[in-house]
């Protein structure tokens, strides 16, 4: 299953720290993940666990200062993006790796028509004539399912609904046919029916264009719908990774198990929902050892002192919990 030559984007041991009020917040603390050609990878985690920061650093968009990339590599087709200068990064952004943001309401420039903005997305990387550009814009809008695109080109963002704006954002991200699209909670600000439409759209575009998708979310329902492989993040580290069936049916990390147990379902109707005790640690005050141990029901003494290693369950299913690993082996 693992074929290295198909790996498009590989993040290795990435560390992104923020200096805030004289304290060091280790937002991303040694995260590794990889995206292969044509697959959908989900990065799942609670708010503040470093999902967005690790995605932003792939594009070199972490504000520095206060942010600082303290270590690791981001390899895109074998090239380390962290070593590239600003100008070279600009050629990668949008052209090879594009991003769709969480807030469609504010991610479009309010003073330009959406036609102008899509055109800009193309123009930044490719030169073409006015009429050709217009055709391309119309086709992009059609691809993302905007009705009567010809009229919409002259619209300003505030004239569109949230779902339509997100479609425009996706059209802009796809403008230069990037190999990787990073979607940072693109449906969080939308209601559930629109969310389903957008997810279908991603699926459609992916089968048609063969792009890879890194989908960042905290919504396990979404993940179950679209993911090929899943990375569960907790407090700046990867807690568990594996294929979608493995994560959903055979979770090997107490955090993943807790997350899945806290999903509402019909069988548990009427009973109290499971919850993981405690709260996500402040990235500036993380517990030593395994960052999850204060909330973990399996925790043993060594969890508080020893940083857990990745335990291999085979076929790319890895989990950062030696306690459960020991139990499984016995």
């Amino acid at each position, binding site marked *: 299953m693992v074929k290295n030559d198909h790996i498009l984007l590989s993040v290795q041991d990435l560390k992104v720290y923020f200096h805030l009020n004289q304290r060091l917040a280790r937002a991303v603390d040694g995260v590794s993940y990889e995206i292969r050609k044509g697959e959908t990878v989900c990065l799942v985690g609670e708010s503040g666990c470093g999902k967005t920061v690790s995605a932003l650093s792939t*594009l070199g*968009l972490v*504000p*520095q*200062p206060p942010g600082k990339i303290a270590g690791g590599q981001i390899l895109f087709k074998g090239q380390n993006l962290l070593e590239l200068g*600003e*100008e070279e*990064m*600009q*050629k*990668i*952004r*949008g*052209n090879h790796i*594009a*991003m769709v*943001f969480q*807030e469609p309401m*504010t*991610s*479009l*420039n*309010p*003073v*330009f*028509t959406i*036609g*102008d903005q899509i055109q*800009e*997305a193309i123009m*930044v*990387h490719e030169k073409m004539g*006015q009429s050709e550009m*217009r055709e391309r814009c119309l086709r992009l809008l059609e691809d993302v399912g905007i009705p009567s695109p*010809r*009229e919409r*080109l*002259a*619209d*300003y*963002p*505030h*004239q569109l609904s949230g779902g339509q704006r997100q479609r425009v*954002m996706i059209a*802009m*991200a796809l*403008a230069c046919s990037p190999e990787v699209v990073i979607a940072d909670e693109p449906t969080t600000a939308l209601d559930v029916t629109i969310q389903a439409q957008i997810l279908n759209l991603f699926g459609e575009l992916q089968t048609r264009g063969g792009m890879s998708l890194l989908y960042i979310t905290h919504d396990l329902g979404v993940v179950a719908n679209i993911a090929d492989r899943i990375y569960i993040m907790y407090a700046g580290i990867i807690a568990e990774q594996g294929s979608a069936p493995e994560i959903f049916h055979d979770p090997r990390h107490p955090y993943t198990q807790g997350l899945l147990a806290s999903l509402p379902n019909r069988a548990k109707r009427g009973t109290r929902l499971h919850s993981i005790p405690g709260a996500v640690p402040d990235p500036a005050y993380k517990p030593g050892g395994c960052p999850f141990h204060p909330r973990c029901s399996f925790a043993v003494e060594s969890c508080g002192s020893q940083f857990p290693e990745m335990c291999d369950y085979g076929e790319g299913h890895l989990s950062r919990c030696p306690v459960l690993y020991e139990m499984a082996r016995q």
Partner: protein
Amino acid sequence: MRDTAETVTSSLDVDGPLAPRQGFWQLLRQNRLAIIGLAIFVVFFCIALLGLGLTSGRNPTFDPAMVRLQEKLRPPFSGPNLETLRSEEVPRLGVYVFGTDDLGRDVFARMLQGAWVSLTVGFVAVGISVFIGIFMGGIAGYFGQNHTFIDTLIMRFVDIMLCFPSFFLILTVVALLPASMYNIMIVIGLTSWMGTTRFVRAEFLSLREQDFVTAARALGVSNFRIIFRHMIPNAMAPVLVSATIGIATAILTEAGLSFLGFGVPPPHATWGGILSDGKRFIFDAPWLTFAPGIAILIVVLAFNLFGEGLRDILNPKLRERY
């Protein structure tokens, strides 16, 4: 207002190249006060240009410097006494439209000449101040977070400049410099950029955190392009409003300087100068104060109205109201 919104969109979706400016005019047309302001401004502009042409040169159509002592303090629309005047001294329109002053000079001709002074002083001074303001404010706002030193330097300099009562600063500078129209424009411009700087900096500070700026960066748009294409147009609304009002202020400042005798040197007529000369005769010849006074009032008001209208139109969020 739903109907008008409909017509705006339907007239926009014509085939062919996009015409965003078309929408601008559509919206402007619906804002009556802004249209009035713009109309007055256009008329003023034409009058000032025309005035420049008609009052300058060796043998001008309307000679603002022609002294006719026997015709002094004639009220508006009074005809000249043809017996005492030589043929070249007779006003071209046959009457003194705004009367004459204490030296028998045609106030209408002097107003025409003064219009050009007001216009150029207003525009050049505000041009200078807006240019400096956007530049300084843009630098302070965009680089402020990562290079606090630059931000501090610029903003403290703004504070220092604001400490001086600007009118007296202008007076001092004008007293030291040789009196000329250009010095006045430059001095007014150099002492009025602080407000714009603060506006632009504040706008940039909030704009640089906006998602669309991050989104533009994620598309590979360069810093330069982000500043000039994405941020400045978004920061322009308050700048344009303050600029149009700034033009009004500059015209007032120039009038004030001329009134105090520090402005454009005589015999060149300016509205402030006419006002100043006329104040001695305010009861005997009120037209000497009212003609320039009302002209200043109308022009300043027009700029303010247009500025307000412009703000509404340039802000797409406020557009829905029209």
